[in-house]
């Protein structure tokens, strides 16, 4: 049993509905719960891959303005856990409740088609997610990709691709971020950008759950470290 204590968040503002949030549980049941100060909560969640159970009876909560740094050795099931939390896969048992405000998912794959340019990839993503494409230009500018926006993604370096994937977090404001190794392949400048982005997100009372083998470039007071495995 692993329990994470959440301090009550200081303020509450922004686009997140304050009460009566409907959380979609995987499978059949839909429960209406009050998640006023939580963006994500699990209850005795067990996660597996194939016929192997990797994590048992996990209770995690992510509050507004809070960052949970998920750390563990390779193969402990961090990615599997994140996939279950995002709703891509079903848990072995237990349940996950998420805020209705929506979430950002950044897997270890960048979701960029190599034949399309950065801009085309992001425009497609906006159409898919029903969000405004006008924010793309500014977001590209911020992550230093403005000049590369017409380059096919195939020709970008690993770090540039990672930045292009991170651009999505700036295009659409969403309260919950689930990031799997966001710092992979980033240089010092990229690292600083991610730190800034996370800081701003938390200040707006957003929450994030991030796996990383490196220390996250965020202030200590908002950080919760969660070691698994």
């Amino acid at each position, binding site marked *: 049993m692993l329990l994470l204590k959440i301090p009550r968040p200081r303020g509450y503002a922004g686009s997140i509905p304050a009460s009566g949030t409907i959380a979609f549980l995987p*499978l059949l049941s839909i429960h209406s719960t009050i998640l006023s100060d939580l963006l994500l909560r699990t209850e005795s969640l067990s996660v597996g*891959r*194939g*016929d*192997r159970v990797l994590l048992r009876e996990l209770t995690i909560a992510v509050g507004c303005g809070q960052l949970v740094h998920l750390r563990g050795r390779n193969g402990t099931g961090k990615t599997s856990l994140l996939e279950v939390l995002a709703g891509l896969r*079903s848990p072995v048992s237990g349940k996950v409740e998420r805020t209705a405000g929506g979430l950002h998912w950044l897997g270890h794959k960048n979701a960029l088609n190599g034949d399309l340019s950065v801009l085309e990839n992001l425009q497609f993503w906006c159409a898919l997610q029903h969000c405004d494409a006008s924010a793309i230009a500014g977001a590209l500018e911020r992550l230093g990709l403005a000049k590369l926006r017409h380059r096919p993604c195939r020709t970008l370096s690993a770090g540039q691709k990672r930045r292009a994937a991170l651009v999505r977090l700036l295009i659409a404001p969403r309260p919950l971020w689930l990031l799997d190794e966001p710092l992979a392949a980033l240089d010092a400048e990229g690292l600083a950008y991610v730190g800034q982005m996370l800081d701003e997100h938390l200040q707006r009372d957003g929450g994030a759950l991030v796996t990383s083998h490196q220390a996250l470039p965020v202030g200590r007071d908002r950080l919760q470290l969660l070691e698994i495995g």
Partner: protein
Amino acid sequence: MWTWFHRLASPPTFYRLADRFSPWLAVIAALLIGYGLVGGLVLAPADYQQGDAFRIIYVHVPAAWLSLSGYVAMAAAAVVAIIWRIKLAECVVVAIAPVGASFTAMALVTGMLWGKPMWGAYWVWDARLTAELVLLFLYLGVIGLNQAFEDPRAGARACGLLALVGVVNVPIVHYSVEWWNSLHQGPTISRIGKPSIVPAMLWPLLAMTFGCMAFFAWAVLQRVQNELLIRERRSAWVRNWRLEREAAGNV
């Protein structure tokens, strides 16, 4: 009712239950098939049109019948596996496929053997025979798909989806083949006239059918038990099961 269902579907409970029932199924299958074979192949009178060749129905008809109902049963298990994600149902899906495929193959082979004296050729593009051949391909697709997956659970669910699409396809295949067969040839192929069946012929046929059903169920149960042991090999109940067997000295 629901909790009872879940209890039954839990691997250890089902495993014990299968252990208790499968010997009975085996005995019933052996008795019925034994009676059916003796009654059908020896005691029943020869058909006045087909002579002794008709006796192949005692194998062919049950095999053909089970090949089809086996596929439907597989699809039914697939529904349970996909909607409720019950591990036992996943095992049933992958366990039925090889057994059903063997019955389909048997129906095809006996159909061909029967075709030689009746139609003068081992293979005639008869509607039912062709539909049976497509059914065999559908079974083989499920088996092939299951073997391609490394993760047994994802593999079983993929097989379930294929079985579901396949089961919608089976009646379509059946009617399209009938239509195809009737397009030009008309009723030239002599359908075997339905003989008015005498009790001495009927009872062995019924016994064979139910006997094969029992055998089918027995074979599927054995496979389901094996699947359960493999999938649950890390769980406590399988370890206990092993210890019990080792203590009894038969590992």
